[in-house]
């Protein structure tokens, strides 16, 4: 019966979120087109500059408009959103312009990222194959969230659809690259996690004292270039900026 109900669901869906706003969701599962749609729809909503909207963001598959529903009735904005939804095929929307490609020096495995072997085994790969996959796949910033500035990055090949751990790792350090369900997260500070710790970087996605506290934006790409432990330690000892030796280039 649940299945029958699920198949009746149509997308996108527009819903209210408490009294805090309205959300447009493009899919019930994470997909690249739905994520692209959410990012593109956010740009269109921001360009519309509706005065009721206090702020807005995109998540994995949705665009959220924060507005006070105790002041503004939701119906008018839902109607405008429906018109915007109907105005084009959002799943075919292009990626935003002005994106950045980040190349981040990364130490895979070793005592600094001790779950590489375990993750490789779950993906059915040798450690060498795993490093090749994890370091050559250009990973897109799907959304920022959980911790400030923290990217959810996708997506790895199918066989990297490995589950989260049943037990939580009590603490992985800032700059840790972790993986589960074909995605990466890159933690801005030390945190407990159920994802497997496969790489160490000096790249911090939240730099509260910097001119640019949040270096990443949804749609950016990241490549995690493998470095030796000696190279990694050198970057670590010489870079205090939180950039971790990363190179940024504008994508066309």
């Amino acid at each position, binding site marked *: 019966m649940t299945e029958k109900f699920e198949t009746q669901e149509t997308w996108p869906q527009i819903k209210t979120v408490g009294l805090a706003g309205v959300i447009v969701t493009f899919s019930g599962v994470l997909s690249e087109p739905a994520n692209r749609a959410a990012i593109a729809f956010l740009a269109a909503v921001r360009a519309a500059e509706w005065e009721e909207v206090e702020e807005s963001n995109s998540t994995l598959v949705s665009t959220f408009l924060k507005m006070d529903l105790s002041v503004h009735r939701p119906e008018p904005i839902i109607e405008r959103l429906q018109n915007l939804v109907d105005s084009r095929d959002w799943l075919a929307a292009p990626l935003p312009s002005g994106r950045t490609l980040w190349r981040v020096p990364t130490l895979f495995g070793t005592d600094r990222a001790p779950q590489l072997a375990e993750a490789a085994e779950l993906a059915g790969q040798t450690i060498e194959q795993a490093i090749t996959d994890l370091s050559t796949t250009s990973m897109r910033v799907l959304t920022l969230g959980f911790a400030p500035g923290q990217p*959810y990055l996708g997506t790895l090949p199918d066989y990297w659809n490995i589950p989260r751990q049943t037990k939580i790792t009590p603490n992985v350090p800032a700059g840790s690259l972790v993986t589960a369900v074909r995605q990466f997260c890159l933690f801005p500070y030390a945190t407990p996690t159920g994802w497997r710790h496969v790489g160490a970087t000096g790249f911090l996605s939240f730099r509260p004292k910097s001119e640019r506290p949040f270096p990443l934006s949804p749609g950016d790409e990241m490549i995690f270039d493998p470095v030796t432990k000696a190279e990694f330690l050198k970057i670590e000892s010489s870079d205090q900026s939180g950039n971790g030796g990363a190179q940024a280039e504008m994508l066309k």
Partner: protein
Amino acid sequence: MNRTLIVRSIGPAAAIQDLGRTGFMSAGLTRGGASDPAALHEGAALLGQRLSCAVLEMAGMGGVFEATSDIRIALSGAVMDATIDGATVQWNASHLLSACSVLKIGAARRGNFGYLHVGGGFATPSYLGTQGCHMSAGLGLLIAEGDILPVGSDASTDTGFHVVPEQRLDGGKICFVRSMQSDKFEDSTMTRFTKTEFRRDPRGNRQGIRMDFDGEGFQSGGQLNIVSEVTIAGDIQITGDGTPFVLMHECQTTGGYPRIGTILPCDLNKISQAPIGSSLKFELVTLEEGAAIQARASAVLSGLTKSIKPLIRDVTTIQDLLSYQLISGAISAKNAPLDEG
């Protein structure tokens, strides 16, 4: 002269607060800010100053403070015992803290979060545009013994007002509305949820507070299959074992557990202030009803400036009665209004 407040002692987790940061949601940073925003409105009304003035939030326990110059203060939120130079002063009121006087604030007697407001607001540094401490993001500093808190300049000298706060310190009825994932829950689960008496669990922090209850959990059908989605303060999140957690002001911006509904902002203050073990019951209201309840609560807060009243002091408790000018201004024989014109 330097306007500062010297912290002689302080409870744990006291911090400078305000109404939090907006505009960073898309970067993964929630608003944060004071646990009981209504208390900020009350303090601002008592001192007749801007709502944006930074305040000191005290979690469960106050502190001892010494003024280096005359400073107006106001006290709001959780009720704590307060004295100035040993004389009891009223909570939910504004007072003068003279230079070198000592203000002592004790443990919370009702509620959790008490607030010390100063005329001109605390003039501490801003982090990402505002002064409020966002503890889970590591923004701002906790206040420690020996800290010297700078106080902003103050144009007014008015003190001696009190305000009657909206009831919010004892738990009770909490109104919520359906939200984007409420339809993932069976009607029977929703009904059972609204009929269950919950208790404020000791497990909780600025990100979320667990609701304790007896009986079976409140899982939804597709519990494990949902995509991580926007979370907001007030969301009632149901974890894997069916336990509700109310997400608070420093919650994460996204979450993977389904939410059965969202508490009205005015009633979220009751969750913040509910003592451990206090009874909480959730009442489902329609979006229209919820909007009306919230709008009324907002109107009360914005009307506080007009509803503050002068403190009525008991003459027998005024130690320095003779220093008050009790005659001039009461009647003027020289300048009787009737003689004019």
